């Protein structure tokens, strides 16, 4: 029987939306224990949020000033100490999880399964390769701790009907001083979170400029959607990097995805292939996005998007 330790991803105030999805993955092991570790420096309610998630047995809170910025170099030695009591150590495959878990695995001297999208048994999983253009079934050795990251877009968030206990524990690990947090630059927005929004509108290079992105925002606001972008739009500086959707950006699964002025490169497609309905607006009828979009409209986006926004009123 599996005993799972899941590391919570949070910003000091809120759980990252990928964590409840990773809990859902962990619950698929039917584990005899599913403990969530919350590393904090002064808790602002994150542990309580984790305790509500269905399937969680206990929340373990490790409150230590060294945990303030959740740096992988600080957390990894602590997780290694805790791992002895578990068969599986998991984390959501957010940038936090990807940075952290491989460091943990190497310290433990074990392999890692990245981007678990399906649990077939305690040691057999499905995971994507080649930007999701192939799905492999992999079997991990069962005589060692299994470290894994969860492809959050493959899971529905765990429900919030639980009230697991929150226990404060202290972990005695030697922490390095070679890595220091300097700053973080985030773009706060009142729009729905890109990773969880049921509707997302994304703009690509075709949008042409940061100012032109206003028509994307207007359409998004009309239907209460999150806003994303292609890599080309981010590279060109139209929008910040945290909006990038795709193989190397965010992988999302909204019910409705509207791609505007995006050609549909495989690396972009990798980020949206789990979406419910994909709409493409592009003036080039040969654009590859039309091969995969459920609804394609060949049109100039500067005409079609404002018209769509108006007619959705």
């Amino acid at each position, binding site marked *: 029987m599996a005993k799972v330790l899941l590391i919570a991803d949070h910003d000091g105030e809120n759980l990252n939306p990928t964590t409840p999805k990773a809990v859902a993955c962990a619950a698929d092991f039917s584990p005899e224990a599913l403990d969530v570790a919350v590393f904090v420096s002064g808790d602002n309610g994150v542990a309580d949020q984790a305790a509500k998630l269905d399937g969680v047995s206990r929340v373990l809170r490790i409150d230590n000033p060294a945990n303030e910025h959740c740096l992988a170099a600080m957390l990894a030695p602590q997780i290694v100490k805790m791992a002895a009591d578990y068969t599986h150590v998991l984390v959501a495959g957010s940038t936090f999880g990807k940075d952290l878990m*491989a460091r943990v695995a190497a310290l433990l*001297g074990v*392999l*890692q399964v990245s981007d678990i999208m399906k649990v077939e048994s305690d040691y057999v999983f499905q995971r*994507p390769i080649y930007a999701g253009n192939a799905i*492999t079934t992999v079997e991990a050795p069962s005589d060692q701790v299994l470290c894994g990251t969860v492809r959050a877009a493959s899971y529905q968030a765990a429900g919030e009907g639980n009230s697991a206990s929150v226990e404060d524990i202290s972990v005695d690990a030697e922490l390095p001083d070679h890595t*220091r947090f300097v700053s*973080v630059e985030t773009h706060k927005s009142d729009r729905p979170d890109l990773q969880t929004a049921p509707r997302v509108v994304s703009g690509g290079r075709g949008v042409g400029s940061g100012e032109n992105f206003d028509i994307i925002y207007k359409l998004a606001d009309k239907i209460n959607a999150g806003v994303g972008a292609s890599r080309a739009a981010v*590279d060109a500086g139209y929008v910040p990097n945290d909006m990038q959707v795709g193989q190397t950006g965010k992988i999302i699964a909204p019910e409705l995805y509207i791609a505007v002025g995006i050609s549909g490169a495989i690396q972009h497609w990798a980020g949206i292939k789990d979406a419910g309905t994909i709409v493409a607006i592009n003036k080039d009828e040969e654009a590859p996005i039309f091969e995969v979009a459920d609804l394609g409209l060949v049109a100039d986006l500067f005409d079609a998007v404002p018209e769509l926004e108006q007619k959705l009123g």
Partner: protein
Amino acid sequence: MKLMVSVKRVVDYNVRIQVKPDGSGVVTDGVKMSMNPFDEIAMEEALRIKEAGNAEEIIAVTIGEQKAQEQLRTALAMGADRAIHVEVDEDIQPLTAARVLKALADKEQPGMVLLGKQAIDDDQGQTGQMLAALWDRPQATFASKVDLDGQKAKVTREVDAGLETIEVDLPAVVTTDLRLNEPRYVKLPDIMKAKKKPIDTTSLADLGVEAAPGLKVTNTAPPPERQGGKKVESVDELVSELKNRGLI
């Protein structure tokens, strides 16, 4: 200081890969192979550090089959000073790759090891972090900016929330994100010059590295097909389709 850059031979990012019908993997025979794009960015960053006078030597490393020397030649043509080919016949695990790089780091004592944040074939994204762990050194992953300052580096990282900046003591491991730089094109004279640069060949055994137990891949399948391709003629038709589907 020395810089070490690891490069991997992968299927070119423009290739639409095909899954073998018997589920045994992905077709690579006769397919265009290239340097992993993220590793190209790592190479470029190393060159820029050296050109700014902050490093003396760049060593490119690959772990792979004989043909992976083509990618080392590309690295040498870009400007690496010398190369090390760790020859293996089979695919190796990220943990094994990290052990190899750790053994080479012990030997070469680089001030920084630069790697791509992931390889675009198996997308595992582990090797840099694993190397940092085994080497007991800092890791600055998903880098979009690297500023050297004596024995320290300030690195801006692309994270889900935006941009995070951390400071690490050297030696350190840096893994590259796409926006760190734009790799230079190699020119023909550089390719000719690269032919004269040395490639050392070594093996896991020579380095005293034990291969880590692997993940067994039991099946490879194409992803579920999506039925796309329907076109609408006007915004009005799009709106009514969306309404019919209960999406708005």
